């Protein structure tokens, strides 16, 4: 299926000097050469179109970007350093704050790495609940991306529609964890809480009504001449370039590389769900939009399947050395109190060694690399930040485009500065 039949229609109705109706092409005429005098323009770090505290120093020839030099680090919080001073479970609140547009799947990514390091097998119910958490995160992250990008390119309505849907997922997150943004959902070996009774019904209602909004966004943007004109052929990367720049997630797939960790390195039993890997063909901003939009449909499909199969049973592993006893037991049972004390005071010790788990986050491959020397605190906690690595291709993508296209290209990367700067 190809939706790219629009190139020939990229024109807007107008009149010529004699008053005859004509179609004015939307492409810009070639800029005259200004005799080599270049301009230095600073964009950001406080600028609405840089999606956070990103700063771009741009060398311009007329309106054409010759060079774009990104400056990052304005939101650097030293999470990796902080992690070296914390128990494994104490690190989980830090993961909320890296990619704060999809906190739940960050929690899951870290918990999977810690469990791999400690050799813990999680329960079937926990596995399915974590899939639900990941896919809910993908939807809200893509909704924020869609909304903000459409605002960058001058379309206000899709922003409101997208944020309304995001709000509904936020309500579900609040219902489950008590927090809308800083969810801290997972614990090593399980979850902080089971879902409340009304959750399944509410989420099912969401999955039934959400595709209608996607259809509306699709109708208002996909065949929109202005949208297509601003995004088609802008910031294109070939498959070889995308691989060479280590891009991941929708950025990689839009360039035509069918690589999705959920299929190619399955975790949480993703191989048992029925969904498609969405692949673009041109690798431009427009294809990245199509990939993300279609991924929302797929996530919705996975959510429905997960709800259908959600098994009963415990959410935490049955290991008192890893999971805190319930408050009632800790207060009434001597043994449970000792386990509680030891876990809080000493933390959960991980065996010597290292583990890396990469999960398919909304923005790309989120890797958590943990190195342990046998104590309860990691020697090294490394986050492989997908949007940091995707952003590193920005100078390459922006070269030779107009300054206004730079905004579209930057938006298409889907960065979140909390994660880029960590």
């Amino acid at each position, binding site marked *: 299926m190809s939706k790219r039949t629009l190139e020939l229609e990229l024109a807007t109705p107008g009149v010529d000097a004699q008053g005859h109706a004509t179609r004015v092409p939307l492409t810009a005429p070639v800029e005259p050469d200004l005799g080599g005098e270049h301009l*230095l323009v600073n964009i950001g770090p406080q600028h609405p179109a840089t999606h956070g505290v990103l700063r771009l120093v741009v060398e311009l020839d007329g309106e054409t970007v010759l060079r774009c030099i990104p400056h990052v*680090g304005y939101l650097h919080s030293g999470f990796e*350093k902080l992690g070296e001073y914390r128990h494994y479970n104490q690190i989980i609140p830090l993961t909320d704050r890296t990619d704060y547009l999809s906190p739940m799947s960050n929690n899951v990514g870290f918990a999977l790495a810690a469990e791999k390091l400690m050799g813990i097998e999680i329960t079937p119910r926990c596995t399915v609940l974590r899939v639900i958490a990941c896919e809910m995160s993908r939807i809200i992250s893509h909704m924020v991306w869609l909304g903000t990008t459409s605002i960058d390119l001058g379309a206000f309505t899709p922003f409101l529609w997208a944020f309304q849907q995001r709000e509904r997922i936020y309500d579900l997150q609040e219902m489950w964890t008590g927090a809308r943004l800083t969810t801290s959902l997972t614990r090593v070996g399980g979850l902080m809480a089971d879902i409340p009774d009304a959750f399944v019904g509410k989420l099912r209602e969401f999955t039934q009504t959400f595709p209608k909004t996607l259809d509306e966004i699709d109708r208002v943007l996909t065949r929109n001449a202005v949208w297509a004109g601003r995004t088609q052929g802008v910031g294109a990367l070939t498959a070889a370039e995308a691989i*060479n720049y280590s891009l991941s997630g929708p950025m990689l797939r839009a360039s035509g590389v069918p690589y999705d960790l959920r299929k*190619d390195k399955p975790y949480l039993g993703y191989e048992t769900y029925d969904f498609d890997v969405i692949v673009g063909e041109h690798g431009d901003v427009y294809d990245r939009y199509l990939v993300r939009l279609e991924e929302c449909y797929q996530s919705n499909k996975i959510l429905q399947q997960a709800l259908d199969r959600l098994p009963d049973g415990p959410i935490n592993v049955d290991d008192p050395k890893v999971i805190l006893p319930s408050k009632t037991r800790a207060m009434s049972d001597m043994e449970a109190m000792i386990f509680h004390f030891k876990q809080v005071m000493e933390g959960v010790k991980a065996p010597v060694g290292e*583990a890396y788990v990469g999960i398919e986050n909304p923005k790309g491959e989120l890797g958590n690399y943990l190195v342990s020397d046998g104590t309860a605190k990691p020697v090294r906690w490394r986050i492989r930040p997908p949007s940091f690595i995707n952003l590193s291709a920005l100078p390459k993508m922006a070269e030779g485009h107009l300054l206004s296209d730079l905004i579209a290209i930057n938006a298409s990367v889907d960065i979140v500065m909390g994660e880029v700067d960590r």
Partner: protein
Amino acid sequence: MIPGVLREAKARDGEHIVYVARERLLETMRWLKETPDQAFDYLVDVTAVEYRDRERPLEVVYFLRSLSRKVDIRVKVELDAADELAVDSVWSLWHGADWLEREVFDMFGITFTGHPDLRRILMWETYAEGNPLRKSFPLRGRFSRAEQVRQALNANPEAHYSLEELSIADAGGDLPEDMRERLKRGERGTIPEPGSRE
């Protein structure tokens, strides 16, 4: 047999780790990337590890992946902290290494020889407290909060631009007079001639 391998190990997640001699890193990486039945065409991540045990060497860790074979491998180079902290850059093989190596340089002070633009990335260019992820670096930093604030408030506008960036504005005659005065003193080095870059 992978060339230049000193020893091999298995990680707790089941991945294969190979330790490579520092001098032969680039050769090994090129072999891993370009040998058809290896085809490790994708660089997942570059990072470094310093252990709490001061006797253990620092490790630079490369995560490689073959997208077609769906296999991962982890390549490690050990660097003695007392020695010169330098390895060859793999930027020529994977451009994705650009920012990743800059981050390791910034956070650990490891130099990547052959990197085209090795500058600090998360910390600013004039940051003088050291390399934050080294174990010898205190959690709260080396300078007091008052000193950090003082330095931030005293920074001149041109401190936010690299000299190369300033050369663009200088060529257009767009720099303010006082800025030009300060730069003429050469405390940050000299502005390169415009067009001197390739």
